[in-house]
């Protein structure tokens, strides 16, 4: 055990840091892009506050299209776009772009679903009190949906961790890459098992944390 940690400890730790970096940075950008898109979907849908069939259809189909492309294909397909946007297609920087492109539409969709669950009645009550739409979105809709949003984000994060495993193809490293390179390609199964166990623990922790926070936020 001690030998194993001596030999692989630092590599695994480095992989862990890279995975965490990739996940958190892409999550942040995905929320930044996904949140407004989700709100736009809710507002422009039929019967929404800014009912607009054109905008809704465009955003809605775009999200569907992106979500139907497997991540590994998206990764290569986006290479030129990534290059112009961040100047490189490799390393952590290079993989953030495809991760965000894959994750933001997912987050938009989960926000949309969570926000649509909020009762029309409460929104109307706030409209009837003369509260403006932006305030209603933030302080009523997102607030009331926050528990479902957290649960959705938990799934998004776990999905992102899975996708970072493919980041190895563009040399971004991370735990998944480590398991693939050493465990599979160079046949060091103990490294692979160690990484898998670590990933299982991470996913368990994130899911439990998500559940706890969601329950706390729900208040009933």
């Amino acid at each position, binding site marked *: 055990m001690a030998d194993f940690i001596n030999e692989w400890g630092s590599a695994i730790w480095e992989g862990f840091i890279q995975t965490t970096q990739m996940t958190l940075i892409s999550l942040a950008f995905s929320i930044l892009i996904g949140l407004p898109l989700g709100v736009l979907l809710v507002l422009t849908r039929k019967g929404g506050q800014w009912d607009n069939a054109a905008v809704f259809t465009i955003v809605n189909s775009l999200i569907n299209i992106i979500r139907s492309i497997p991540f590994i294909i998206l990764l290569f397909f986006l290479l030129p776009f990534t290059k112009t946007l961040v100047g490189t297609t490799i390393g952590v920087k290079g993989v953030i772009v495809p991760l965000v492109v894959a994750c933001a539409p997912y987050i938009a969709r989960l926000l949309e679903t969570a926000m649509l669950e909020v*009762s029309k009645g*409460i929104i109307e009550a706030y409209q*009837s*009190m*003369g509260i403006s739409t932006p305030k209603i979105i933030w302080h009523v809709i997102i607030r*009331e949906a926050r*528990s479902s949003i957290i649960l959705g984000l938990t799934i998004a994060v776990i999905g992102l961790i899975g996708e970072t495993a493919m980041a190895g193809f563009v040399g971004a490293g991370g735990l998944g890459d480590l398991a693939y390179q050493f465990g599979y390609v160079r046949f060091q199964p103990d490294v692979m098992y160690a990484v898998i166990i670590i990933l299982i623990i991470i996913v368990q922790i994130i899911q439990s944390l998500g559940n706890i926070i969601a329950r706390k936020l729900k*208040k009933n």
Partner: protein
Amino acid sequence: MIKLQHVSKTFRVGKNKIEALKDVSLEVNKGEIFGVIGFSGAGKSTLIRCVNLLERPTSGEVFVDGHDVLKLKKKALRQMRRKIGMIFQGYNLLETANVYDNVATPLKLEGVPNEEIKARTEKYLEIVGLTDRKSAYPSQLSGGQKQRVAIARALAHEPEVLLSDEATSALDPNTTDAILELLLRVNKELGITIFLITHELNVIQRICDRVAVMENGRIVEQGSVVDVFTRPQQPMTKRFISTESKFQIPSTVKDDLLKSGRLVKLTFLGESSKDPILATLAKQYDVLPSIIAGGIDQLKNQSVGKLLVHLKGDKTQVEIAVGFLHDQDVLVEEVKD
């Protein structure tokens, strides 16, 4: 306070048109409680929602406190809405906020200063009697308590008018009474005009000054509650009040009674209910009155007594006796077959 003039509202659902309101005009005076009653689908909710423009009328005019609300720009409309409180059948509280925050949050969003928010929230929670539950969440409250929170939330804006869309329809009779009592106090003590809609006659009876009866998007009858109760004109109104059903007597019994005299339904209002009219009748004329059925309805400021009386005697004597009754301060209706 509220004036609707020739208001119509047509919903378009695909190719179908639903005329929810057809040329509705009514006026709610400052300080009164005005109720609209009607069966499900009559258009009541649509009507009340046209007051604060949660629903925009297809045509017609809406005035609140003298302002033509349809002409207000977005911001002015929001300002106006703060003067119009609204409560709903479904309470519509934030599930994620406790009682205190449910009342305070809208004020915060309107930019009311902090001390003022605290003062008002506490004041109105006190008025609705929920001070000791202020850190409870809606899921921990009963329906009646939730409606109280909603009322406190509406009052905290210190509105001039309170709109109520079936506020008691989801509550049991006792809780309904308590909430109606609260609305009465809000009206009397805070001087807030109340415009409510309901399908429960009891609500109209207990707290309304005036009433409009709605059917298929039209107002078929309106007037003071006492008038509408004692002299319902439209079949629709009669169905609601269903006076007949209270005095339902088996038709064989009725036939017998009609053979030996006449059946009259007497409606006594307020003071006249204290006069011994039937005793006088028996004494002065050669008829034998007997009471077949009776009851008292309690209205907001008045009680209404109803009696079904059989008058037995010689035809002409009975005729004169009926004439005597007509001269009294009672409403007389003949019950034929």
